[in-house]
């Protein structure tokens, strides 16, 4: 068949059942076309056929015969890129590609080829699209990093540039960011942005190795059972199958886990299946199709067990125990003051119970691991993982190898959000590679990704709150049930955070919280942006509004009265001594909200000409610890090296999931050496090349790894200064670093030559620094449980259709205190993405499991917000730098998505008087209330 791809006519042999995406990716090597779902839902596979965007994953290759296909690779003429020498502008890029880079629309980058190709088609037919036209065209091209506002700005500025033939793409304005530094706080494009907009960026599934085998995993499909027998004969004898493994074939430890080793790598005969995603057998075959067929030939007999589907049920006395330790993973307690006194002092006591749903990370790139045995007896694992050193440890345990025999080679990650911390396919791929001696790729399809990886904890949260008539809180008591599913994952940590944050960012004299982290037969729950605080913030921020109403107080005023400030003591007994920007966040949001609403933001307003549509604002606050806290040693190592060509390199195993850590590290090292950031290379996520940066979680990278990089750079600079001071016999303070050079009292030394000077003295031009964050105290001991907190306040304006119950969010004002902002474009991406994710948590996202069976087993059944639902986002800074953070920075990643949900549900209440106490918002419930069917 003949087909033209990116202007080149090709004659290609026809293959049975081939989709265009397979043809492009597998046979033509055009891996810029990404597969996020393979079910026509996500848009990341968008290519142009005869000028129109179509989904290559569901477009038969045979249909493209005689047609012209354009992929992301066809939009620009880019070969290889050396980041040190070229910037985006010097390369021939399409204006859209340049604009996506300049506006920070590129985060993890996985969806970006699809976004750009779709936008390209739009601009072909409509050179000057309005915001609504852009939203219409990009409706089904999903971005989970959700920089939708940046995407819109990028497309509009590209359109402008194309119309005026201008070379320049206008720089975005990010208001309010101050910087007293040369590099820190300036707008810098990501080091990996050019690769990402051209489709050259390789993600794990884009890698190919000679004679690579393809793996699939036999999943239990039953939520709770004992395995009686496993018959793999049929699979083994299928031609093309190279290995079939079961639990007996594991040489090392059977169980893995991040904190608790409770998760079997394979469930063996006589053992317990605890959820539908449990692995029973592994297959490696010559092709993925054969492996899939083999999986279906494996026969397993189960003895069904009663299913535990809810954490409350799990705590009942007579239910089956899922783990040797029982069903209770942990009873988490927070105690402050004397609750009895607190409630006695109260003039008013309120009580209410809230429910939050299981939600799914839905990173657009599904999990993929490639294990590659090396001739020297070691093994490499290529994987996009948030914790490379933990992967290494867990793979080593499973193989019964010393850790050094394994190298994790971290790959670009198409989003993580907490969902790529646990083992997914790493150990399975390694076992198969060991058994076959061949490279093995294990790619999850979307279905498997949905079934298997840990989710956000569903919770039931009961709050009892006491207050004086003037609004001062006297006591808060909370009881939480958290569903950690079949395995612990990070359940204990997540639910600890839910518990410690369950009385909100308020000073409460008497507090008590009890959380039961329970095992069930649902998919495991683990880390997810917000780390438990998303759930408890919904409960407590709803309660604050309910209390304000009962007291006849303004909801912002009530919060202000009780807000944490410098000098406050948290409910875990930590006295805050600095860097508490909560009041300022509240004030700024309130001012902006009053300004936008013309006063009276909480009074419902009917839309002119459509009186059944009612609008109002809602307010919420939130806070989130930076770093692990709770007494956990929180350290990160980074190494900085100077090379003879004048380049600097910073290395750490911390993970880049799209959030922009690589930019932050680049900036920090550049700042310390007073160089332009392009002089700094960043190497991350490689256990052979980079020192351990610790887990990429808990909004800790900028602070902890950032400090490691800063101190490594600083130490290296001082060593260089010492060398030069001795060599030139000058006092150290006469030595200054300038662009590419060192000035030594009038003389200049090229930066690269410092290397030789140092080596001549026996000094290495590199420094490894292990940074230990300030010590924290375990929960229950009082004192500093965390070394820093970030604070936020948000207001959301919603519109409720009182005839249908439909809710849309029009505007969100988000004020954040994340200390000094180091990387404004990254910050903007985090704010936009966080708000949109919070909106999804409120309105669209619901991972449904019924009696342990996953209903939400396709992306078509899981809605995440699209560009169409994205509100206008007004981001405001209220930076209160923290003394030990790098340049005063704290965490931002999780913070922004915490207050959004309650701000929206509070707005719904103000609009129509319906109190949402179960997420996600159900339009039917709103209608039932409005029709008077349900009593408030």
């Amino acid at each position: 068949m003949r087909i033209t791809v990116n202007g080149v006519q090709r004659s290609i042999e026809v293959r049975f059942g081939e989709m265009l995406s397979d043809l492009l990716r597998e046979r033509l090597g055009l891996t810029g076309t990404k597969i996020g779902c393979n079910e026509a839902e996500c848009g990341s596979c968008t290519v142009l056929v005869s000028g129109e965007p179509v989904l290559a994953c569901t477009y038969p290759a045979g249909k493209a015969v005689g047609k012209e296909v354009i992929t992301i690779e066809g939009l620009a003429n880019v070969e290889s890129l050396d980041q040190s020498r070229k910037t985006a502008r010097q390369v021939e890029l399409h204006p859209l590609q340049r604009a996506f880079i300049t506006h920070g629309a590129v985060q993890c980058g996985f969806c970006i080829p699809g976004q750009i190709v779709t936008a390209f088609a739009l601009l072909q037919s409509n050179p000057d699209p309005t915001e609504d036209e852009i939203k219409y065209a990009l409706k089904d091209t999903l971005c989970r990093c959700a920089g939708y506002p940046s995407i819109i700005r990028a497309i509009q500025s590209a359109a402008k540039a194309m119309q005026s033939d201008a070379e320049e793409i206008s720089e975005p304005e990010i208001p309010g960011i101050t910087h007293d530094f040369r590099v820190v706080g300036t707008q810098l494009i990501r080091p990996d942005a050019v690769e990402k907009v051209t489709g050259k960026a390789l993600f794990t599934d884009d890698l190919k190795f000679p004679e690579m085998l393809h793996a699939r995993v036999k999943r239990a499909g039953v939520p709770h059972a004992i395995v009686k027998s496993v018959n793999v004969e049929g699979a083994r004898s299928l031609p093309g199958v190279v290995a079939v493994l079961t639990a007996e074939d594991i040489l090392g430890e059977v169980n893995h886990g991040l904190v608790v080793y409770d998760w079997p790598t394979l469930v063996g005969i006589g053992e317990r299946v605890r959820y539908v995603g449990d692995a029973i057998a592994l297959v490696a075959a010559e092709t993925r199709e054969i492996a899939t067929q083999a999986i279906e030939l494996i026969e397993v007999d189960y003895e069904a067990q009663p299913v535990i589907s809810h954490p409350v049920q799990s705590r009942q006395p007579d239910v089956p125990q899922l783990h040797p330790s029982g069903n209770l993973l942990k009873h988490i307690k927070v105690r402050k003051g004397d609750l009895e006194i607190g409630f006695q002092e109260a003039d008013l006591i309120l009580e209410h119970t809230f429910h939050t749903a299981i939600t799914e990370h839905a990173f657009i790139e599904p999990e993929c691991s490639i294990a590659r045995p090396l001739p020297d007896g070691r093994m490499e694992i290529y994987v996009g993982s948030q914790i490379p050193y933990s992967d290494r440890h867990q793979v080593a345990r499973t193989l019964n190898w010393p850790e050094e025999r394994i190298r994790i080679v971290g790959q670009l990650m198409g989003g993580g959000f907490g969902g790529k911390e646990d083992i997914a396919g790493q150990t399975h791929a390694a076992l198969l590679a060991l058994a076959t001696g061949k490279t093995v790729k294990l790619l999850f399809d979307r279905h498997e990704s949905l079934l298997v990886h840990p989710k956000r904890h569903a919770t039931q949260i009961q709050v009892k709150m006491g207050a004086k008539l003037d609004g001062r809180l006297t006591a808060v008591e909370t009881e939480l049930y958290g569903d950690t599913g079949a395995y612990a994952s990070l359940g204990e940590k997540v639910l600890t955070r839910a518990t410690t944050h369950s009385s909100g960012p308020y000073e409460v004299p008497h507090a008590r919280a009890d959380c039961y982290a329970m095992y069930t037969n649902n998919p495991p729950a683990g880390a997810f942006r917000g780390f438990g605080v998303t759930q408890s913030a919904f409960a407590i921020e709803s309660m604050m509004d309910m209390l304000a109403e009962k007291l006849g107080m303004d909801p912002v005023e009530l919060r202000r009265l009780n807000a944490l400030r410098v000098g406050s003591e948290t409910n875990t007994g930590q006295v805050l001594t600095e860097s508490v920007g909560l009041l300022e966040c509240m004030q700024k949001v309130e001012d902006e909200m009053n300004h936008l609403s013309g006063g009276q933001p909480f009074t419902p307003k009917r839309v002119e000409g459509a009186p059944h549509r009612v609008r109002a604002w809602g307010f919420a606050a939130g806070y989130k610890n930076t770093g692990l806290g709770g007494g956990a040693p929180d350290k990160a190592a980074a190494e900085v090296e100077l090379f003879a060509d004048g380049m600097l390199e910073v290395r750490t195993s911390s993970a880049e999931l799209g959030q922009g850590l690589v930019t932050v590290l680049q900036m920090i090292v550049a700042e310390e050496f007073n160089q332009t950031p392009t002089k700094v290379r960043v190497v991350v996520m490689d256990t052979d090349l980079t020192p351990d940066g610790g887990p990429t979680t808990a909004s800790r990278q900028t602070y902890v790894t950032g400090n490691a990089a800063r101190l490594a750079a600083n130490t290296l600079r001082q060593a260089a200064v010492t060398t030069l001071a001795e060599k030139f016999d000058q006092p150290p303070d006469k030595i200054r670093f300038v662009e590419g050079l060192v000035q030594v009292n009038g003389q200049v030394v090229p930066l690269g030559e410092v290397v030789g000077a140092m080596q001549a003295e026996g000094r290495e031009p590199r420094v490894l620094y292990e940074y230990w964050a300030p010590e924290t105290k375990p929960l229950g001991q009082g004192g500093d449980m965390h070394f820093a907190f970030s604070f936020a306040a948000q207001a959301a304006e919603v519109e409720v259709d009182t005839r249908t119950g439909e809710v849309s969010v029009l505007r969100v004002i988000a004020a954040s205190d994340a200390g000094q902002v180091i990387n404004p474009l990254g910050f903007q991406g985090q704010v936009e993405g966080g708000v949109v994710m919070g909106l999804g948590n409120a309105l669209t996202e619901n991972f449904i499991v019924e009696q342990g069976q996953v209903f939400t087993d396709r992306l078509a059944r899981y809605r995440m917000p699209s560009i169409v639902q994205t509100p206008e986002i007004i981001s405001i800074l209220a930076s209160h730098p923290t003394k030990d953070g790098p340049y005063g920075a704290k965490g931002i990643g999780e913070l922004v998505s915490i207050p959004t949900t309650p701000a929206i549900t509070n707005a719904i209440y103000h609009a129509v008087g319906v109190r949402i106490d179960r997420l996600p918002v159900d339009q039917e419930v709103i209608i039932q209330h409005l029709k008077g069917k349900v009593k408030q």
Partner: protein
Amino acid sequence: MILWKDYHLAHSIEDALETLWNAPGPARLIAGGTDLLLDLQQGRHPPVHTLVDVSAVPEMTSIELRREKLFIGAAVPLNRVVLSPLVQEHAEALVEAAGLIGGPQVRNTATLGGNVAHALPAGDGTIALLALGAQAEIAGGSGIYRSPLEDLYLGPGRSRLATQEELLVGFYLPIRSKNEGSAFQRIMRPQGVAIAILNLAAWIRRRGDVILDVRLAIGPAGPIPRRSNEAEHVLRGKKMSPEVREKAVGSLLAEASFRTSPHRATAEYRKYMAGVLLENVLETAWQRSAS
């Protein structure tokens, strides 16, 4: 698993039918493939030997006026339906419905023929076509014939078209006179599957403030996409008024059967929404019929 072996791009109706009839194994028609390919990929449809692609058949991809009728080829992609000035002029309800199906990429391949043949009780294109009084043109062994759309359905996902024997060529719609108008609306849920909880289309012909004639179609309100004959009857010949609209809602609710579908909607919500949607589309179609 090999989902198909031959992919045949048909160049004419005869070519399509003959390939369908003579295929050495199971053969299926495919237009945009946005339903069929997912069914094949996800195992809801067994693998086939031959896929007969009709999306390039000239007779099936035109939109034109033919003797007092608007002809829309079954294989016209939905984005062309939406942008066609002829469809915009004569079939507003269809423009609204087609513009809501899927996203832009899906609409660049998905077709009306596929939507109708897939026979979902709430296919958006189907519901609009029903209210517009469309006739389907069908080609098969016994030649070409026309059938009113409502006679095409047997049950959920099942149409009267003989599989591997017949195909939909296109749809004939009455052209619009000045005093006629149509409208389509649907209600969705932001969570879960993107299929309408309920959709409803109306077509009205009026004189002054009297409803001379009316067609209403609603889905899902039973196993097949359907007209609402009782409600039409209540409206026909009456003056348009809030009272008559309310009565129409009453009879619509009486004759339709709404189901509770887990994770999508309760029967009760559907019932309530049917009233809201009917009011809305009647109102819009009424206004449009004034121009």
